[in-house]
């Protein structure tokens, strides 16, 4: 039986004005288990806390009930007080007789009566309190960043700068991501490569960073602070540490006609290739589907020209197992496929392109060496139509496109339009839009410059159809403001395709037990307050894997994620919240219901041998809660039909005792 002390706070007149505190402490003195009951002006004051400490010592109290303000206010305070008095801090319960009593009721009689009941409920609960100790787990001081775009690079650099080891896993042969493909960046119009490539070099040279390019994560086990990850390093048939990136092999390779992914298939690359000049790592990769040597065993030219002897046709995929304390997801985005948008004739005419293809067309390192030429005939386009929101902000019922706004298209379209007009003032540029959305520093000014200084024709309305006719593209559209139908004979049509999370994100989310929304964007632990954390402890989000973002936003989120990772890795041990779920293994059915409602993947199952009540020994599948991962929501406790799962600090019997006391 507990020896309970009750401490009723006046809170000056805040409580005492509407609650007869003397009557409350007198009434509660009579409750079973209560050996001491008093009231005091300010229980949270030093004097009040001293009073509690003294009472604990004098009356050998084992549990404390503080009738005061909300536990959201001073629960932490009184837990510390209990600790000072030598009690476990979780032997304290608060009866909220201020916010939920004295402040909402006016009459003394009513307030007093309710305060007594709330006090009794707290006493009933504290009878069943047990000392709780937070669990501890060690932290592996190394982070994993999945994805080597600007988000991953920035996160990795920030973590590395703080002195922690960090590995980047990138599925392509080089890091850099989408930003490496861009020409200029809005709203400053500085060249993407100029600002990205130094960062790529930095990250490659940082001794805390390892880059696994042409690699992917295949398995994730463990939990926050202690992830076990398997990384598959795909065979690139070139010894990475030997290759100097001289490019002799690339020049000599006879299998030259392979679509160049980096230029979105607008030109070709050889079977052995380096994606672009500033690639990191700057080593060659052999495309096994294109290489004659790998396919048929005939050729071997690259090996012969490689003076370093880096070519290795026998290379196999390699699996690396590594431990990490934190994982950052930075898997990025892709433009959606235009296959379902026949009305824009993307698959019918080479001169209908996506905005990313436009980036490559205007990029000095692109297929046209930066000259804006039509892909079909290499002529200079004189009339360009930009179509915004292609696949963005679609009706949920339409079976194509996305419901969300892709966020970046308004700005890059303005950029494209402006750059076109700047370089080729003779070109007429039309932009069709639903709305122009340009919040952001200097963004709206940028857009207005496009309209006002560069004379871009912005037309509110959707393009209905694009029809190739001769060497022209007939764009049928409506001008909603002028309320008329338009027909424009364009030379080039550029589609601002919606962006979607990379396809690799979904299987990765499963591996990480991180949740995703219906669009396959990763879900945040809290949409406002924890935007860079996934609900799965130790998994963080960086860049477009969480939602569409432009570069500045991506970089700030990347740094924010890094800050969270650093905050985690800097700890030697993780201390958990002790109010977590725990499974009574003898009662557990192993049915998996709890696991299915756990938002954190905190529950796993083990087969364990038990000595059963009938003296037999049995192998049983039972749930185990990882205390480092559980956050204590209690969803599992209700999903569990046998009641094997209970929540410490809010156990079923504690809550029912409160119910009983209130309903007495």
């Amino acid at each position, binding site marked *: 039986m507990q020896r309970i002390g009750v401490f009723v706070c006046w809170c000056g007149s805040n409580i005492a004005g509407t609650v007869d505190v003397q009557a409350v402490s007198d009434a509660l003195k009579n409750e079973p288990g209560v050996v001491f009951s008093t009231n005091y002006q300010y229980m949270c004051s030093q004097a009040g806390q001293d009073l509690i400490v003294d009472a604990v010592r004098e009356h050998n109290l084992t549990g404390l009930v503080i009738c005061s303000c909300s536990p959201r206010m001073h629960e932490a305070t009184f837990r510390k007080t209990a600790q000072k008095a030598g009690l476990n801090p979780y032997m304290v319960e608060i009866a909220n007789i201020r916010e939920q009593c004295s402040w909402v009721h006016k009459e003394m009689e009513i307030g007093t009566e309710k305060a007594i009941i709330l006090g009794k409920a707290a006493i009933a609960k504290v009878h069943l309190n047990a000392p709780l100790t937070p669990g501890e787990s060690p932290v592996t001081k190394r982070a994993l960043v999945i994805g080597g775009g600007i988000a991953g690079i920035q996160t990795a650099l920030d973590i590395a700068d703080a002195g922690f080891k960090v590995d980047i896993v990138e599925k392509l042969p080089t890091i850099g991501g989408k930003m490496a493909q861009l020409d200029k960046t809005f709203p400053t119009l500085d060249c993407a490569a100029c600002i990205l490539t130094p960062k790529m070099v930095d990250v490659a040279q940082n001794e805390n960073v390892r880059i696994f390019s042409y690699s992917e994560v295949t398995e994730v086990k463990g939990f926050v602070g202690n992830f076990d990850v398997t990384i598959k390093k795909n065979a690139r048939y070139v010894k990475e540490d030997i290759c100097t990136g001289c490019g002799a092999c690339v020049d000599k390779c006879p299998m030259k006609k392979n679509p160049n992914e980096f230029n979105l298939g607008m030109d070709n690359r050889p079977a052995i290739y380096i994606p672009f000049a500033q690639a990191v790592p700057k080593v060659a990769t052999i495309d096994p589907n294109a290489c004659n040597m790998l396919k048929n065993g005939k050729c071997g030219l690259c090996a012969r020209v490689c003076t370093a002897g880096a070519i290795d046709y026998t290379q196999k995929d390699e699996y690396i197992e590594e431990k990490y304390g934190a994982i950052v997801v930075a898997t990025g985005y892709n433009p959606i496929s235009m296959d379902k948008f026949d009305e824009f004739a993307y698959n019918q005419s080479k001169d209908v392109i996506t905005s990313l293809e436009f980036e490559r067309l205007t990029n000095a390192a692109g297929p046209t060496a930066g000259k804006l030429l039509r892909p079909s005939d290499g002529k200079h386009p004189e009339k360009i139509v930009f179509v915004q929101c292609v696949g963005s902000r679609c009706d949920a019922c339409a079976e194509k496109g996305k419901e969300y706004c892709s966020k970046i298209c308004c700005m890059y379209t303005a950029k494209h339009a402006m750059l076109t007009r700047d370089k080729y003032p003779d070109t007429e540029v039309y932009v069709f839009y639903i709305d122009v959305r340009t919040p952001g520093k200097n963004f709206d000014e940028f857009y207005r410059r496009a309209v006002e200084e560069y004379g871009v024709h912005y037309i509110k309305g959707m393009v209905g159809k694009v029809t190739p006719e001769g060497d022209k593209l007939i764009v049928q559209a409506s001008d909603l403001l002028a309320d008329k139908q338009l027909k424009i004979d364009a030379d080039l049509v550029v589609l601002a395709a919606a962006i979607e999370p990379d396809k690799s994100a979904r299987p990765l989310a499963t591996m990480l037990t991180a949740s995703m929304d219906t669009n396959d964007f990763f879900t945040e632990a809290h949409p406002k307050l924890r935007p860079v954390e996934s609900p799965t402890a130790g998994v963080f989000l960086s860049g477009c894997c969480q939602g569409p973002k432009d570069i500045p936003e991506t970089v700030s989120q990347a740094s924010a994620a890094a800050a969270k990772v650093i905050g985690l890795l800097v700890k030697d041990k993780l201390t958990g919240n002790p109010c977590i779920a725990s499974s009574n293994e003898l*009662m557990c*059915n*192993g049915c998996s*219901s709890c696991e*299915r409602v756990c938002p954190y993947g905190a529950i796993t*199952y083990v087969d364990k041998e038990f000595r059963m009540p009938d003296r037999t020994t049995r192998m049983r599948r039972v749930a185990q809660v990882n205390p480092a991962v559980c956050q204590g929501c209690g969803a599992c406790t209700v999903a569990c*039909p*046998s009641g*094997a799962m209970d929540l410490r600090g809010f156990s079923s019997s504690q809550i029912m005792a409160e119910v009983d006391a209130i309903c007495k």
Partner: protein
Amino acid sequence: MQKISRESLVEKAIAMLQAHEVSAVLGWKKGEFDYDITPALFTDAEDLQKNFVWNDFCGANFSKYLVEKTRNIEGKILTFLKPCDTYSFNQLLTEHRFDREKVYAIGIPCEGMVDIKKIKDACGEGIASIACEEDVLKVTTLYEDAPIAIETETVLAERCLACKSKKHVAYDELLGETGEVLESNRFDEVERLEAMTADERFAFWQNELSRCIRCNACRDVCPACTCEKCVFDNPNSGVENKAAANSFEEKLFHIIRAFHVAGRCTDCGECSRVCPQQIPLHLLNRKFIHDIDRFYGDYQAGAEVGSRAPLVDYTLDDLEASEIFEGRDN
């Protein structure tokens, strides 16, 4: 009359036993009379020849037995599963309640099982013998000289009249043919109750549940109730009781039991079959199933292994609790 013969089942069982492919056969055993069949484990051919039964009285669902029997028996168990049993079988597998490797499941077709109570109502008490023939049962009683012929159709169990599926959703082997998922009228009675006033519903259930003697037969036969320790047997659960003191406790037991199996209940109907007080307990489960179908889309527990039960799942735009009665004014 069942389409597949007893002999073919016995033959199969003996063959598998003798080939040591299985070490026991879970089957229906001949009783004292022609209708009181007991689930049993057969381990030898002679016993099977003599005592194995397959007829219109083999209603018992064996799936739940697998939980315990697979633990205690070395080697594989051969079990015969009627279409409805296969749903329970899958649901138990979804919940990891037995080792699939230890079972050889043979799906057998079922033409529906009869309800002995209906036969007694039709022929009077004092059944001396019952012979299952094609579409007809020949019943002799202690008090009638001539055998009475009743059409099997007229004495089918309620749950079989509202059969949801003739399709086997799990088996290693089929004997005979499997059928289709059926359009059934199984929710009619639920809807009839829903159409009543609250007072009428209250009176209905008060009358039904007040008969409960808390023998736990419904729970103990239920393939979804395989808890290591039931909350109603656990003094620490806060709801433990051995007998219902009043109408509150009668309701408590049945509401919580139905809630605990909600989304997991395959609607096999065993609860109502075994109730010694003939309380239509399956209506509580069907209410949950019907609501789940209406609120969250059709879901059949056990239709596939590993499916996510509706109560451990959600969508962002689920119905609010305040919206469930919209369009209903009773």
